[in-house]
């Protein structure tokens, strides 16, 4: 898997390294939360590497498979981070607009003059 290196310790802990040029810490933290029912998770960052230690809980019947799932989850969380980053401003605007009595999106549509839209030749305006 690109950007991911894994290692298994003697106590069964799986160590996964993520390159910070590929993955954000936030995406890894959110993935760790999601897999908290299966693993005890420890996250450390050194320079450009984020090391994740995944120690299987008793309920984790197939650790290898779930470590793979964890890596895929980090990819999904990366996509979510991208969407959240790009849409943060629009999200705030939508929330403000939803509860505003005036338009915050395009004030012209609230104050625009019908005649100024060059409709002078329409029959009703003759």
């Amino acid at each position: 898997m690109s950007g991911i290196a894994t290692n298994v310790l003697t106590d069964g802990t799986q160590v996964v390294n993520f390159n910070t040029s590929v993955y954000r810490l936030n995406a890894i933290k959110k993935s760790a939360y999601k897999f908290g029912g299966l693993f005890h998770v420890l996250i450390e960052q050194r320079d450009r590497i984020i090391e994740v230690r995944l120690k299987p809980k008793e309920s984790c019947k197939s650790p290898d498979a779930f470590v793979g799932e964890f890596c895929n989850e980090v990819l999904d969380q990366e996509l979510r981070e991208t969407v959240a980053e790009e849409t943060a401003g629009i999200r705030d605007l939508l929330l403000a607009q939803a509860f505003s009595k005036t338009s915050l999106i395009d004030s012209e549509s609230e104050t625009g003059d019908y005649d100024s839209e060059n409709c002078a030749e329409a029959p009703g305006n003759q």
Partner: protein
Amino acid sequence: MPLSLVPSHKKIHPPEEFSSEAGAYQLLPFRFVPLDSKKYVLSNFVGEYCVVEREILQALISKTLRPDSAAYSLLKSRHFFFDVGESSALHLLATKYRTKQTPLAEFTSLHMIVPTLRCNTSCVYCQVSHKGAAAGSCDMTEAAADRAIDFMFRSPSSHLKLEFQGGEPLLNFEMVQYIIESTRQREQQTGRKVSIIICSNLSLISDQILQFCEKHDVQFSTSLDGPCDLHNQNRPSAEFDSYDRTRIGITRVREALGICGVSALMTTTQASLSRPKEIVDEYVGQGFKSLFLRPINPYGFATKAGVLTRYSTLEWMEFYKTALDYIIDLNLRGIHIREEYAALLLRRMLTPYGTGFVDLQSPAGIGISAILFNHDGNVYASDEGRMLAEMGDPHFRLGNLLHDSYEDMMLSDVLIETLTQTMTEGVPGCSDCGFQAYCGSDPVRHYRLQGDIVGNKPTSEFCQRHMALFRHIIGLLEGGGTAANVLKGWIY
């Protein structure tokens, strides 16, 4: 045509000016969650969803979707992105979001009153640790009832609903009568309307009770757990045949109040798991047009007797899927019956309107969607909060009708703190979930099972169950055909 009637062409642009350039779009806020190993459910700012393959999701976010592709048109029309400079999508989304949040301004609709904790059945899953029929100290006083009615009419809700819970409310019918008559009088004084429901096992139904209910426009809700042996196993009584009394009661209520005079719901025990079709058949046989397939609640005798731990979420889901498939099949054969759990999820998924279902609100529906007045005047943020108090933990007690004001209770720390912490838009594990718009918070259940009102979602039974329900229903809708049509027909 006279020249003056020819419209100006200044504003009419050639078609190519309306076509989008690849990558020239702006993403709108959306969430996503895997549906299965290949497909993802994407839900937009207001919860309208699309199911796409992962490649499409990735292309959408990396802005490599081809403008002439079907996915481009679909995702644009569902407001997952918009062309830069065009604002209609923003206006529409903001309006839909406001519509979806409207119920919050309505405030408390459902007001539950427990006129007595006495009961004449000993249900294996009883959630409130029922008392014997002779335990008179478990009855509500007129003073507490008066304050409960005052409290209810303080709510700004335009759809007030009063529900009698128990115990068995009909064991203290005098108090039920008093409250209903007082409520109807107050309606006339205020010009407001209250729907009234008595939740009862119907064992004590009499002509006198039915005449009163007909006069005051009162309906019933009862429990019907399935065929005779299953019902009696779950809801035994030392005094009578529980199933027979309920069956006869249903018939008598319908004769007096009409077919809609009584609705029913079931609770799943381990004994129910192998009998989904028989349970559905029982409802069909008794002429019901709907049933609510409910898992057991983790309160009261359900935990003491160990009933709660006897089946897993996965086992309940298998039971539910089998029953739902069977119900859909019955509908396709012309027998119209609706499964209420699916119906309310579908309403949340496919319409801009909310539901009053307390368990699926964000912030949590406790206190602000429903509230409960116990027989002793104690006020709880939900029925489950009362159940927890009966187990010895009054965490969700807001105050007492006789000692505390409306403001004291509705602004109490426990309520405000719970509401603040249970907005799924900001809860770990929920904030990014593709099902966030349909789901909600159940702080009492999480507090009970995990010791925390927010709860740990990866290990939450509530989360597992609803994720599985959403996936199953979306899977059925995506499968198209007749099953999807049946499900869509249940939305109301």
